[in-house]
């Protein structure tokens, strides 16, 4: 959950670009992973395939379409990515039919683990581990490396960075593709939990918006904490009042919004 929201918040927070096609890219990643995984029986190859599919997809749509939208009003960006989402999802449907496909949990993920008296499926714990490592890696990449420095500088003042002889456009493309790849990664990891079908990305997109609103837009920590809170709400509510589990999530969002419009970790400003 946090992974999807993070991809979205990176593109949005860094590029100031909202991507309504994020859910569709998530789905594309899931399908990319599923195809390779069922063919080769190797989950690792599946992950690589998902990453590659969505990274390339990210580059293609950034070059063809998104690039000319950076300077247009946010409403246009929403509309065009929304249209793009339709195109991606329907392309997937045309290729793979609308049928729901089973995505088996890899062998190393079967079984349960006893954590302080509560039994967790082993796969979920492993995914949490992978997510944590990925988040750390992304954080280091953006805030501690030279590439991250260029990215952040390029967003702050594209003109000056360009004058320094750095290709800002390529940097933007890289950031966008990275956001897409994060969605793809989340897609392949979520697949054994969700089952694969063309519409799987829709709920994910909406939920990651909720995560971002709760956590605060453009905030790295916010996306993580928001993701954890949202995950907790859903699992607790499912355990005690299943009928309201999804609804409660949105109630929580409304509450955050009323009490603290900028989100728990957000900074005021940007509109």
């Amino acid at each position, binding site marked *: 959950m946090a992974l999807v929201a993070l991809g979205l918040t990176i593109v949005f927070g860094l590029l100031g670009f909202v991507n309504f096609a994020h859910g569709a890219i998530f789905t594309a990643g899931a399908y990319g992973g599923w195809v390779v995984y069922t063919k080769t029986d190797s989950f690792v190859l599946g992950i690589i395939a998902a990453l590659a599919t969505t990274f390339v997809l990210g580059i293609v749509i950034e070059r063809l379409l998104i690039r000319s939208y950076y300077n247009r009003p946010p409403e246009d960006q929403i509309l065009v990515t929304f249209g793009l989402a*339709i195109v991606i999802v329907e392309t997937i449907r045309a290729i793979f039919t609308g049928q729901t496909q089973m995505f088996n949990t890899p062998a190393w993920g079967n079984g349960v683990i006893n954590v302080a008296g509560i039994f967790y499926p082993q796969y979920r714990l492993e995914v949490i581990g992978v997510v944590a490592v990925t988040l750390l890696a992304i954080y280091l990449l953006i805030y501690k490396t030279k590439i991250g420095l260029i990215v952040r500088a390029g967003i702050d003042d594209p003109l000056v960075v360009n004058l320094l002889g750095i290709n800002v456009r390529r940097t933007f493309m890289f950031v966008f593709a990275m956001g897409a790849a994060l969605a793809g990664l989340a897609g392949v990891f979520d697949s054994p939990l969700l089952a694969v079908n063309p519409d799987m990305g829709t709920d994910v997109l909406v939920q990651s918006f909720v995560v971002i609103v709760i956590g605060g837009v453009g905030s790295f920590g916010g996306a993580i904490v928001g993701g954890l809170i949202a995950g907790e709400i859903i699992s607790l509510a499912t355990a005690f009042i299943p009928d309201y589990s999804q609804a409660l999530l*949105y109630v929580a969002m409304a509450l955050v919004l009323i009490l603290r419009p900028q989100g728990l970790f957000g900074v005021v400003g940007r509109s």
Partner: protein
Amino acid sequence: MAVFLIIFPTLMALIGGDVTLASRVLILATFGLGVDLIFGFTGLLSFGQAAFYGTGGFVAGYLMLQHIVPNTLLALGIGTVAAALCGAVIGALSLRQVGVYFAMLTLAFGELFFFLENSPLRAFTVGESGLPGVPRATIPLGFTTIDCTSAIGTYTFIAVIYFLGYLLMRRIIASPFGRVLRAILENPERAAASGHDTLRYKLVAFTIAAAYAGIAGGLLGVFQGYMPPDAFGIDQSGEIIVVTVIGGAGTLIGPLVGAFVWIYLQHALQNVSAISGIWKLILGLIFVGLITGFRRGIVGGVVALVRARRKRTA
């Protein structure tokens, strides 16, 4: 417009459609009028309009089905008011944010309604199976009676409602209220600086749009004799935006044109077996192309073309 509505079913028949298709177009166009008011004229992009469409439809449908309110017009009215009330509440919460956040919030609220309809309110809405058997009543208007049991009767009823809705919307747009809305669209800061309470204007506009969605939802129930749970779905919210934008947001007949293109192409493409599976893909591509090329939709594009022509000849 009145003339057009009278000959519309005939035109539809000429190009391979029928009265039912014409009715669908007008229901969607009524829904779109509201979206046009908030997006085309005020600049608010809401992704949660299905919440009001569904609310209007289910409230009206439930009242008629349970014989609580046997009068169709009254039931539709109550459904519309219920949708408007929901619109006022959601608007009050969502309008605290602008731009992208507003879109995200309305999207999330739309989903909230969808889940409420599907689980906690299942007793009323029958969850995933929807409300079958919404009566197609005859509607006594005093001087005449509209018989909604026939396709043409239903069309007449829907056309009358759309026409009234259209006239009302034209009045709203031309009123001082409508002018302030357009001022907000062009420059929110300046509108606020001119002493207008922009939040209140936006809230009223949002509520009106919800009412339009509500009555359209109610009409859908009467028209189909069935209220589908999809009316609450996120796809419905997306569809109405696509429809409005394809037709031309910010023009009064835009939603009608968009609804026609959407429904007719869907109908026509589905009949061609080679591409029946990908009609939505084709419409998606058209949509992306239009936003990139013709920001003001089909109607806006035509208007711009005509103007350019005139300039050249003048």
